[in-house]
């Protein structure tokens, strides 16, 4: 480990961190450094400072403190039985990298995770030390996302929550059974207890203290988690079921779905397929329908085959095609809940429709200007001067939305 340059450590420890999908830097407390006594600010929404060619945004300096790890989780690049090169940052190195990157406007803040070394407490306490130094010595006011280690001591979690904006802990796989198979040393029950603990601390921090002062905020940007998709045999219904449970039980801000991707020096126990990116995308769409469009799990899964979402069509369209009796919807009369169920309409389009139709009735072209996709919505709505006719009942309706067939290659 000695003799590695900062640059080679950075290469190893960011390579090791890239399988964590989260890069959000939004939704924390608003703060800035206009007073000249610190560095950094946090506004409502996050900023993506760069994009890598994998289409993922780079908003935070996402690194591991170390990729040494005593666990042997089959899907993980850092598992103990892998022969990838190992490195470890010192506290000062992480602090310096964060500050230097931030001052050049490369990043919104730090996403610090780590392999588990020595013991959970020792690892967590090193991580907390980094964050404490950033906040208290460097007066850093940017965003900090900290991975928590499941069975770390409560006082470490407490301090982590006061210093960081977001805490997260990954459930990794959708079922306890697959955890047992691929990450036998991790205890899913313990992970759930850790998330429950963060929720309770967050709620406790909302109450005023007995003197009437506000308690210091605990992880103001909430907690999130990640599930790996496609490593085990779980179907989409199981995955979405688990995330619904997680959202409701622990008030998570986000559940990230990460398509299982080939890793260097992988184990023979897992299939090295190209990552199921479309499936990942469909899961995110379904996740959004569940949280912002008033769908419930049963409805989304009802459009699925063998419990898996249709890869060719987005889940709302798949649902609409199976529930044609609901359509066509009259744009000028239908209520918000129903409009949200029209394929091709987003939350913004719907609120624009609602605010405009208070004054006049809406035509086909209006919806296009409001940002609705009439190519998708057309067969499912009526508007002034627009009726889909028998379109909604045609047997070929589905094929209108399918991606064009591809000519097979001769060679």
């Amino acid at each position: 480990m000695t003799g590695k340059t900062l640059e080679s450590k950075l290469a190893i420890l960011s390579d090791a961190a890239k399988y964590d999908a989260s890069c959000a830097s939004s939704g924390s407390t608003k703060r800035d450094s206009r007073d000249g006594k610190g560095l950094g600010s946090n506004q409502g929404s996050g900023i993506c400072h760069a994009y890598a060619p994998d289409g993922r945004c780079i908003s935070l300096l996402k690194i591991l403190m170390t990729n040494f790890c005593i666990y042997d989780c089959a899907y993980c690049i850092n598992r103990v039985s892998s022969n990838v090169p190992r490195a470890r940052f010192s506290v000062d190195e992480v602090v310096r990298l964060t500050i230097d990157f931030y001052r050049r406007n490369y990043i919104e803040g730090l996403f610090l995770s780590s392999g588990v070394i020595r013991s959970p407490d020792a690892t967590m306490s090193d991580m907390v030390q980094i964050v404490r130094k950033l906040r208290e010595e460097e007066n850093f006011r940017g965003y900090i996302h900290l991975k928590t280690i499941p069975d770390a001591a409560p006082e470490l979690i407490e301090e982590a929550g006061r210093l960081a904006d977001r805490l997260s802990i990954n459930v990794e796989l959708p079922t306890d059974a697959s955890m047992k198979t691929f990450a036998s040393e991790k205890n899913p029950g313990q992970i759930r207890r850790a998330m429950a603990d963060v929720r309770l601390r967050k709620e406790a921090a909302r109450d005023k203290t007995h003197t009437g002062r506000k308690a210091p905020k605990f992880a103001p940007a909430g907690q999130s988690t990640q599930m790996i998709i496609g490593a085990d045999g779980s179907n989409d219904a199981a995955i979405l079921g688990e995330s619904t449970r997680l959202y409701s039980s622990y008030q998570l801000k986000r559940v990230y779905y990460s398509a299982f991707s080939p890793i260097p020096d992988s184990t023979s126990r897992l299939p090295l397929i190209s990552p199921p990116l479309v499936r990942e995308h469909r899961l995110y769409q379904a996740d959004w329908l569940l949280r912002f469009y008033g769908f419930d799990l049963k409805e989304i899964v009802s459009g699925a085959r063998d419990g898996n979402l249709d890869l060719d069509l987005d889940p709302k369209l798949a649902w609409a095609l199976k529930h044609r009796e609901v359509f066509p919807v009259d744009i000028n009369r239908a209520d918000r809940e129903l409009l949200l169920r029209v394929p091709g309409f987003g939350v913004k389009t719907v609120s624009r429709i609602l605010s405009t139709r208070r004054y006049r009735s809406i035509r086909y072209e209006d919806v296009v200007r409001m940002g609705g996709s009439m190519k998708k919505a057309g067969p499912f709505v009526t508007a002034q001067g627009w009726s889909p006719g028998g379109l909604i009942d045609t047997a070929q309706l589905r094929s209108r939305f399918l991606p064009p067939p591809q000519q097979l290659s001769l060679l």
Partner: protein
Amino acid sequence: MRHIIVPDFGTAAAWRKAARACLNEGLSPADISWGSEQTERGLFDDQPAAAAAPVKMTVPRSFVELAETVCWHRDPDRFARLYAFLWRLKDAPHLIADRGDTELAHLRGMEKSVRRCQHKMKAFVRFREIGNRDDPRRSFAAWFEPTHHTLEPTADFFARRFGDMDWRIVTPEKTAIFMNGKLSFAPGQAKPELPDDASEALWLTYFRSIFNPARLKVQAMTSEMPKKYWKNLPEAATIPDLIANAPARARAMADAAPTLPPVRAEKARQQLAAHMSAWEGPKEALPAAIHACTRCPLHQNATQAVPGVGPLDAALMIVGEQPGDQEDLAGLPFVGPAGQLFDRVAEAAGLRRQEAFVTNAVKHFKFSPRGKRRLHQRPNSGEIEHCRWWLDAERALVKPKLILALGATAAEALTGTGADILRRRGTVEQLADGTPVLLAVHPSFLLRLPDPAERERQMALFEADLRRAVEMVAALAARTGRQDMAAG
């Protein structure tokens, strides 16, 4: 016709002021020609405009916000478009909420693209350090080419973010300067030569390493980071190579044969085992869990783990050292020579072994092969420590009233030390949870004693210890029995 020039600096506030003045004079959009400092004057610009009655109207708040953003758009028609829409609002104020209106849709589109330009500026400005790293206020500078006139409305973001350093952002039209906490603007400049910055190399390293070659999605990248910005982004220079090599890198990962775990893995596994919390599970599952144990390397050479046997409600728990050659083969504790000796003495002492729970401190046989024989080796403290987890699980399950510890290893596993067992034998020590432990030697010690007289003496002591165990169990059982009756 009135010609109004809206200045390049302070554009939004100036337009707002001018528009208010025009409404006061009742000037319709057709009476005004709007221009900026760059636009040329039109042919009829200087003809006097017809005065009309002042317009009294309440301008909706959302229009003010819209105008404040659209004013920074690069379209020369922006001022005229805004005023024309404002003029329509005086008779139909609800138009501001009519997202289907063509003109509003156009203005909202302009607003969106200015906001996007601002957002991209916040994201893609890249500072280089131009001062000394150790200065009390460090100094940085950046060159940026925005699509719209967005430096002015966006500069405050940088002032809020980088409050403790001096910085300047140079664009072709304007320069924003932040010195000692004061923000000011100056005319634009040509692209300045900025000194090399060592952190930039680290940033490129980070950019290359965080990219996952197995999930190439170039379009997703370019839609959010359009190529027009690439020339001022240091990291963009690495993109073509990353894309070109990605398929080969992904293939190499898939083709690579699985490797053997490094030597370190075994050590880490032991470390992990030491930190695992207590075993939890149904009692029927315990023997199976012990059989599956890989907490220490002993499992690699042994035939099988040997869990304890006996009634789960036994009052007496007997803890030996570890399975021997015979026990390892049979999978049962105390069946080899030492076990047979134990049985003989126990019978003489009146101890009924089948009523006790019999187990070992370490569950796997540790030995060194010597020709066709396996020579017993004493487990070390690490192995005892790992296996204590199972012993604790068995204790938690059986909840014995008395534990009989045979030999130094059992003493160490239970009390923390195995020292001085010959002096401690025959004494009772208390565990943290209050369970009494009676210490005795291990029967294999008796088998190994060369001097017949000494062996005779130790055998007698051992028998006395076993007898004492029987008596203690009886006394403890009677006491709890009395307590039970008292409680009943």
